[in-house]
């Protein structure tokens, strides 16, 4: 009786150790990819840091890890391993490449005999398994908790050392917003090493034999770093097909999964991937290949063709004067018609809705058919999700103010959610998409912030009321919007039309004001001349044309 109690206590201790090892490991990996050198101070007077190593906790990474693990009180972390941290690179052009996958896995002592059915995806696992068999005789199972604790400390130190040696470290140190950024994703699943391309390397960081199984920490990293768009994309095509067919949808329905519990495990992992790694899952899907500059963009369903064409053409033709007028015009169009956004909003809403439904199905995992349907549904939505994310990212890069439209676009989605499942807690996925951009690779001191600030200032500057500009603006906008405005008026109803009339009336009065002012100036020109001559200027400056003379003076 007491022996079993002791065993249980030891297991509890071990679970706690493993949990904190997992939490600290993700911190180490993600922090090493921030692109900066790290220094933490020793604390000789017995600090409280786990494994006696000072690893600072980044709250965001902590949240992500906890979200990925999704441990409820009373849950054991042993059922939630392997835990993976994926580091990927994304260029400003939108090319994306997975650089490495760090994983912490627990090999059950009994599971040694069973065969894995993951194909290529379980490479690292197989390797480590082979190693386990090889070293089983040599290494004994550790029982004393302090011994395990110190070995975990060594493992964590090894992890710290090794994170500085892989190619991704150098890349992350050189990252800059103009060329590429480094992203991370934490998920609970087998390490997806097939995204690492040919010739990737597996390194086992450490292995620890305990009473609950062998704890294995390993990394798989890419060795071929060249991004050549054609080959990379061709390669991705293959990978995507494999990924979608064999990895995303199989586990939920696969009858060959060893235990029901494991099936459940995988199903949740897939959901996590969609949620947490919505970015990557979407980026990885085939949509990007479809955007071909040669071909015209195809409009979505329910899109007004006339409006769409007008939008894209206008985008390329810049008015000659004045230099920043197009910014103001862009805003006006954005506000008045919003034709460009409607498609995005639909996609976004659709995507969110799918995630919601996904979560919903996740709650009752027994329903396999529903789950399956849900996955196929996601196949479509991944691609659309990418687009909306792109849009979001583009606006984010330019100005922080564009947050509000995105947020507002989400309102219908939440309404939908409440309508369908009021008891469901709101999924964190939408926030996550946004968070990924800001944290942690955008430092407040980066150069882009200046640009964004400048852009914002231009964007919000009050329109200057030059006479010529105003006239040109009024005439051009009225002429250009007439074909579209007829349809938009028809669509928006009488209020919009009334508003349009009111604004044109206001413009006209402003014009009158200006012309009156000008007339006044012209009549009093002589007075001004007199004033200038009173200042004692020589005849040469006043002999030139008056207006240009003024210009010369200012020059």
């Amino acid at each position, binding site marked *: 009786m007491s022996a079993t109690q002791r065993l249980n206590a030891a297991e509890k201790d071990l679970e706690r150790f493993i949990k904190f090892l997992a939490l600290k490991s993700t911190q180490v990996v993600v922090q090493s990819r921030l692109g900066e050198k790290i*220094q933490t101070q020793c604390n000789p007077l*017995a600090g409280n840091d786990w494994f006696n190593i000072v690893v600072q906790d980044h709250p965001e990474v902590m949240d992500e890890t906890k979200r990925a693990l999704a441990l409820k009180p009373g849950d054991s972390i042993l059922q939630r391993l392997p835990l993976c941290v994926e580091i990927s690179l994304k260029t400003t052009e939108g090319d994306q490449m997975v650089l490495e996958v760090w994983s912490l896995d627990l090999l059950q002592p009994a599971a040694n005999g069973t065969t894995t059915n993951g194909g290529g995806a379980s490479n690292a696992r197989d390797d480590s398994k082979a190693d386990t068999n090889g070293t089983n005789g040599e290494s004994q199972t550790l029982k004393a908790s302090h011994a395990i604790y110190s070995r975990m400390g060594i493992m964590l130190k090894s992890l710290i*050392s*090794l994170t500085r040696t892989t190619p991704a470290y150098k890349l992350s140190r050189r990252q800059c917003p103009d060329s590429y950024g480094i992203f991370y994703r934490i998920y609970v699943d087998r390490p997806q090493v097939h995204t690492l391309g040919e010739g990737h390397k597996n390194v086992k960081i450490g292995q620890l034999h305990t009473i609950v199984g062998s704890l294995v920490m390993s990394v798989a990293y890419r060795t071929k770093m060249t991004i050549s768009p054609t080959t990379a994309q061709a390669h991705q095509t293959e990978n995507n097909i494999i990924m979608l067919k064999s990895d995303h949808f199989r586990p939920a329905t696969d009858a060959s999964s060893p235990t029901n519990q494991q099936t459940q495990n995988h199903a949740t992992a897939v959901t996590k991937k969609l949620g947490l790694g919505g970015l990557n899952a979407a980026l990885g899907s085939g949509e990007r290949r479809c955007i071909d500059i040669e071909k015209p963009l195809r409009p979505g369903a329910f899109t007004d063709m006339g409006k769409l064409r007008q939008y894209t053409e206008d985008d390329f033709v810049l008015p000659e004067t004045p230099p920043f007028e197009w910014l103001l015009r862009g805003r006006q169009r954005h506000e008045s018609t919003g034709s460009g956004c409607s498609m995005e909003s639909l996609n976004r809403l659709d995507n969110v809705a799918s995630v919601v439904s996904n979560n919903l199905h996740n709650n009752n995992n027994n329903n396999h058919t529903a789950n399956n349907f849900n996955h196929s549904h996601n196949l479509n939505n991944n691609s659309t999700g990418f687009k909306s994310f792109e849009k979001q990212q583009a606006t984010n890069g330019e100005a922080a103010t564009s947050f509000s439209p995105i947020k507002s676009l989400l309102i219908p989605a939440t309404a939908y959610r409440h309508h369908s499942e009021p008891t469901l807690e709101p999924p964190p996925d939408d926030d996550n998409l946004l968070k990924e951009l800001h944290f942690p690779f955008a430092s407040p001191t980066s150069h882009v912030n200046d640009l964004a600030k400048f852009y914002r200032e231009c964007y919000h500057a009050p329109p200057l009321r030059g006479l010529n500009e105003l006239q040109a603006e009024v005439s051009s906008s009225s002429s250009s919007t007439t074909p579209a405005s007829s349809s938009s008026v028809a669509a928006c109803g009488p209020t919009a039309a009334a508003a349009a009339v009111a604004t044109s009336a206001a413009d006209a009065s402003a014009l009158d004001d200006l012309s009156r002012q000008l007339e006044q100036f012209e009549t009093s020109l002589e007075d001004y001349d007199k004033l200038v001559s009173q200042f004692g200027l020589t005849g040469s400056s006043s002999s030139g044309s008056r207006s240009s003379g003024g210009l010369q003076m200012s020059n």
Partner: protein
Amino acid sequence: MNARSQVFDLTMEGLQVDEAVTTIFQTVLFHRCLGKFMYTGDAQYSIGTVGYTDVDCNFIDFTYVCCTSDSLTHKVKRAINVFSEKLRSNESCGSGQISLEFFQKKKNRWPFPQESIPWEVWTVHLDLIKHENEDERQLCRENVSDLLTEKVIYITELMNRHDYVPKTPSQSELDLIFDTSFPDVQPYLFKFDYSTSGSAAPSMGNAMKKIIKETLAM
């Protein structure tokens, strides 16, 4: 005595020696450093925590991690520097080796001095080369970096094996196992040993190592 012995063979330019050796030794020491022990009873103690620092190399495209301890860094740097100066001096013929040796002390009866028993030895054997032009130098810079990556991976692999390390003693015997002279960290007792081909007769340990190496090479 059955000390574990690891030998790394490296070939590089004189300028890179310091950083390459430091990378290897600091990585080892990082794993062999504990927090300071604070004894509350003879067998009861709490352990301090170890901070770490990223260090960029100047002559190699590499970053290594070491304990955040100025005194330890200084000690390692000085030892390696003495060796590298010797190795790169005019008398030297351009090859030599330096080793980091972990040992424990054993008390003997009164007239005999304390005995040092090594339990782990890390040796770096170096051959110097000179580059003709900048292209070659650049290539070598990358090669040495790849080489160090390999070595660090190897070191971590060894560290995670369940090999012998001295047991933590009671307070009175702490100095026999650990170097307690540092204010912030507590590494196992260690010392440096070096020889360059131009100077000094090799010690017994070095001769043994040479024999082992030669048999391995065969």
